[in-house]
C-alpha cells in the first residue's frame, strides 16, 4: 500500500465518518427520549443550582448514576436512561471521591446542606470536600435546591417527608428540654425504648466509640457532647446537648435506634449505611458513659451473653 496525502486525509475522514455514525449518531438517534417513571422538569432555581454544579466541577468528585453493585447513597434505585433525558451537559462523572449524588434529594434537610456547603467538615469531620462558602448564601441556596431535586419524584417524596417532620421537631425543640426529649423518645418504637444495651462497658469499646464519635458526630454534638459543634449555628433544631438526657430515661435501645435511623426533619442523619451493629452500640455507649453520665449497658434483659463477652455478669 502506497501512502499518499490524499489517501491519509480521505481515508482518515472516511473512517472517522463511519465510526462517528455507528458509535455516536446511531445511539443518539435510537435511544429513548421517553422520561422514566421518576422524571420531572426542573424549576428555574434548580436549573441555576445545576449551572453552579457545572461551573465548579462538582462532577470530578461525584458521579450521578447508581449501579447494580452499589450500597452507598441512593442505592435504592438503579439508574435508567430515561432519568437523563434533560441532562445537558451530562454529569455522569467517572470518579467517586465523594458519594454518588443521583438520588441525593431529600437525604438531608436544607439546614444540613447549608452547614455542609459552608464547610463540609462541620457535619462530616473527615470529609475532603472543598468549602463552598465563597459562593455566597444566595448561590448556595440554589445549589441546595438542585441537590434536593436529584432523584426527581423520588426526591420530592423524600423532601415531603423532611418538610413534614421539620416543623414538628422545631415545635418540640421550642417546648424546652423536657418536651423535646419526650417528643424524641415517644417516636422511637416501643420495643427499642425498653431495650438496654446488651453488651457490657469495656475500655476497648469506649475507645472505639470515641474514635467513631470523632469521625462522625463531633462537628454537630461537639467535643464535650453539649451540641455546640461548629455546625450548630447553621442547624435548627440545633444538635442535641447530650448532657440534658441525664435522668430522662434514655436507654441503649433509644440511642441505637436514633443513631441507626436518624431523625428525619432534623439534621441528625441516619448512620446505618456507615456503621454496622457493633459500631453503633459502641458509639451509643460512649455517648451514654461520657456525656450523659449513665448507662444501662449489660443490664437485664440482655439475653445469653455473646461468646466474646468478658465473664463478669451472672448469665453465662
Amino acid at each position, binding site marked *: *500500500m*502506497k*501512502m*499518499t*496525502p490524499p489517501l*491519509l486525509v480521505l481515508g*482518515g*475522514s472516511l*473512517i*472517522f465518518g463511519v*465510526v*462517528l455514525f*455507528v*458509535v*455516536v449518531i446511531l*445511539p*443518539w438517534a*435510537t*435511544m429513548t427520549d421517553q422520561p422514566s417513571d421518576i422524571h420531572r422538569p426542573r424549576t428555574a432555581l434548580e436549573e441555576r443550582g445545576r449551572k453552579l454544579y*457545572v*461551573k*465548579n*466541577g462538582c462532577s*470530578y*468528585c461525584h458521579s450521578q*448514576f447508581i*449501579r447494580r*453493585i*452499589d*450500597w*452507598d*447513597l441512593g442505592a435504592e434505585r438503579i*439508574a*435508567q*436512561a430515561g*432519568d*437523563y433525558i*434533560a*441532562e*445537558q*451537559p*451530562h*454529569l*455522569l462523572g*467517572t*470518579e*467517586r*471521591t465523594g*458519594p454518588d449524588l443521583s438520588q441525593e434529594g431529600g437525604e438531608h434537610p436544607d439546614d444540613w446542606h447549608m452547614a455542609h456547603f459552608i464547610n463540609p*467538615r462541620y457535619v462530616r469531620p*473527615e*470529609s*475532603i*470536600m*472543598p*468549602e*463552598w462558602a*465563597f459562593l455566597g448564601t444566595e448561590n448556595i441556596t440554589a445549589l441546595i435546591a438542585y441537590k434536593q431535586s436529584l432523584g426527581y419524584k423520588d426526591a420530592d417524596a423524600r423532601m415531603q417527608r423532611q418538610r413534614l417532620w421539620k416543623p414538628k421537631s422545631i415545635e418540640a425543640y421550642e417546648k424546652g428540654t423536657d418536651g423535646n426529649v419526650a417528643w424524641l423518645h415517644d417516636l422511637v418504637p416501643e420495643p427499642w425504648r425498653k431495650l438496654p444495651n446488651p453488651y457490657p462497658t469495656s475500655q476497648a469499646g469506649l475507645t472505639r466509640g470515641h474514635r467513631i464519635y470523632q*469521625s462522625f458526630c463531633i462537628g454537630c454534638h461537639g467535643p464535650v457532647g453539649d451540641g455546640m459543634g461548629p455546625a450548630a449555628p447553621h442547624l435548627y433544631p440545633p444538635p442535641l446537648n447530650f448532657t440534658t438526657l441525664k435522668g430522662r430515661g434514655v436507654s441503649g435501645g433509644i440511642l441505637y435506634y436514633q443513631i441507626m435511623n436518624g431523625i428525619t426533619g432534623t439534621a441528625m442523619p441516619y448512620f446505618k449505611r*456507615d456503621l454496622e451493629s457493633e459500631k453503633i452500640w459502641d458509639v451509643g455507649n460512649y455517648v451514654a458513659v461520657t456525656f450523659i453520665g449513665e448507662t444501662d449497658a449489660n443490664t437485664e434483659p440482655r439475653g445469653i451473653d455473646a461468646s466474646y463477652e468478658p465473664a463478669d455478669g451472672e448469665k453465662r
Partner: protein
Amino acid sequence: MELLREEPHGTTKAFYLSSAVWMVFGTLAGFTGAVQLIAPELLGNIPWIVFGRIRPIHTNAVIFGFVGSALIGSAHYLVPTLVRTPLYSERLGKITVWLWNLAVVLGTLTLSLGFSQNREYAEWIWPVDVIVMASLGLGFYNLLQTVKRREEEILYVSVWYIFGAFVFTAFIYFFGNAMWNPFTGSITGIPDGILAWFYGHGVVGLFLTPFAVAIAYYIIPITCRAPLYSHSLSLLGFWSLLMIYTHIGTHHILQAPTPTWLKVIAITGSIAMLVPVAAVLINLWLTMRGRIPYILGDTGGKFVLAGTVWYLLTCIQGPLQALPVVQRITHFNNWVVAHAHMGVLGFSGIIALGGIYFILPRITGRPLHSKFLADMQYWLVLLGMSGFFTVLTAAGLIQGHGWLNGETVYRMLPEIHPYMVLRLSVGILIVSGAFIGLYNIYMSLYGFKTGRKAS
C-alpha cells in the same frame, strides 16, 4: 513582529519552550489538587484554585499545554525532515504556536473563573475551542503544504501518524465539544455521555497516541542505527489504530445506562486494541533487537524507549479494565487515575520529552545545555511515574474492594489518606523534573554556554 520572527525551526523551538513551561505549570496545578485531597483547608478558601476548578486546569494544561505542545512541535520538525523540504511557512508556524498557547492560557483563566463545559478534557468554553481549532487547522495546512512540495516521494510511517493525528484531532475536537452548541458545548442525555467519551477517549487515543508513536517511529531506527523492521506491520498498526480506537469510548461509562450493543462494541474493541498496540511495539522492538545499548546511549532515545515500555503497560491494563468484571472494582476510583497518568505521562509525556531532547540539538546545532540534567529529569519522571502507578493503583484497589464490600465512600476516605500523602510526595519528583526540564530546555535554546560535551 518579534513574536512572529522567522528563523529555521522557529516553530519547533517555540513549541518546545511552551511545552516546558506548561509542564511546570501543569504539574504544579496537579500538585495543588493533590494537596487539597489531603488537607482541603490548607490552601484557604480560594475560589479559583478550588479542587473542582484546579483539576480541569491541571488535566488540560498537561494534555494540551505540556504533552500537546511538545508533540505538535516535534511534528513540525519531523514532517519537513522526513520529506526533505523546509517547513512551508515558519511564520504560519509561529502563529500556530501562539494560538495554541493563547488557547491554553485562556482556557486556564476561564476555568479558574468558573467557566466550564464540565466534560472531561472538553471543559474549555467555546471561544477557546475556536482558537484550538484554528491552531490545529493552521498546523495541518502548513504541514500539508510542506508535504505537497516534498522532494522525497515516499512518506515514512511517522508522517502518516502525524497526518492521521491532525485529521482525527480536528474532527474529534469539533464534534466532541459539540461546537454547534456554543452555550453548553454538549448534546442531551445519555447520548451526551457517549459523545463526551467518544471525544475524551479520542484525545488520548487519536491525538496523543499517534503523535507519540510518530516520534517513536522516527527516533528508534535512528538511535539504534537499523532500518525499521517491517513496512506491513506499520500499515497494520496505523489503520487498525484509526479503526479500532475510535469505537471504544463507551468503555468509560460502561456501568451507566448506555445501550447494550454499544457496550459490547466498546469491550470487544478495547480487547482488539491489542492489535494496533502489538503491531507498533513488535515493529519498534524488533527494530532495536540487540541494539538497545545504542538507544540507551542517546538521551532522547532513552526517553522514547521508556515511553514504549509504559505504552505496553498502559495498553495491557486498558483492555483488562474494560472488562465488566474488572470494572466492578476499578471503576470510579484511583485505579483509573493511575492508568491516566501512566498513559498521558508515562507513555505520551515521556516520549514527548524524548522528542524534545533528541531534536533540540539537531535544530540548535549545539549539544544539549546539560546531558546530566536531562538524565536527572529522566530518572525523576520515571521514578515519579512508577511511584504514582504503585500508590494510586493500591489506593484504587482499596477503594474498589471496600465499596464492593458495602463500605460507604465516606468510610473509605481515611483508608486512602496515607496514599494521597504518598502521591503528593512522589509528585514532588515529577514537579522537580519539570523545573529541571524547563531550565535545561531554556538554556539549550538560549543559553550562551553549550554545557558539558556529551561524553
